[in-house]
């Protein structure tokens, strides 16, 4: 039920502890953390800058999260996405879904990250030895999101 876009790093342990604190109806917690890799499409990556569309980002993330909550019986959910300049090893995104049962928690987590990658207005500018370039959208991401239907 929480969506945040921020420049600063997030503490995965603290975020998850806050998400599940005091809710003893939670039996399973699914989590995905996206990190900056030091290589992409065969080129080394020194860093990247994440741009977003303030306002629409939060709106899309909230819509994606509402859709997940309509599909699965979730006790809690969280999306945190960073913007600004990041370096290899840095956290980019945290998605977490808690439910009474593990299958709902895992499925909702996969759904959120798949849809986030195709719907949320973020763009990555990568720094490589060949210069800066905007990352191309991946067809595999569209295919992953399409698995979930409309």
């Amino acid at each position, binding site marked *: 039920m929480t969506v945040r876009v921020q420049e600063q790093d997030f503490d995965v342990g603290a975020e998850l502890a806050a998400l599940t604190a005091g809710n003893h109806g939670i039996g399973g917690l699914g989590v995905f953390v996206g990190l900056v890799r030091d290589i992409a499409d065969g080129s080394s990556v020194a860093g990247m800058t994440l741009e*977003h569309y303030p306002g629409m980002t939060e709106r899309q993330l909230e819509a994606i999260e509402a859709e997940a909550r309509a599909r699965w019986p979730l006790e809690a959910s969280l999306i945190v*996405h960073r913007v600004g300049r990041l370096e290899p090893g840095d956290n980019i995104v945290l998605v977490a879904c808690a439910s009474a049962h593990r299958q709902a928690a895992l499925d909702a987590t996969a759904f959120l990250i798949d849809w986030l*990658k195709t*719907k949320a*207005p*973020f*763009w990555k500018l990568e720094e490589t030895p060949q210069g800066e370039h*905007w990352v191309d*959208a991946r067809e595999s*991401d569209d295919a992953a999101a399409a698995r979930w239907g409309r």
Partner: protein
Amino acid sequence: MKVLYFAWVRQRIGVGHETVSPPDGVATVAALVDWLRTRGPGYAEAFKDTRAIRCAVNQEYVEPDHPVIAGDEVAFFPPVTGG
């Protein structure tokens, strides 16, 4: 009408956002793109291949035939690559 540009669309046009007053005939996203193309070489370059561009009106994804009116917030950007 407020128009926003992101990522390489923004870089090619040279500004992140601007307020424009297109003529009365410009009533859809597609017509707005055609009109924007006339504003300079950066615009023409940005909108060269519209298949590579997504549009949102008032922060919701729309297709090229979607209407635009004065007061709308219209955004153009490449397919998203977050996550």
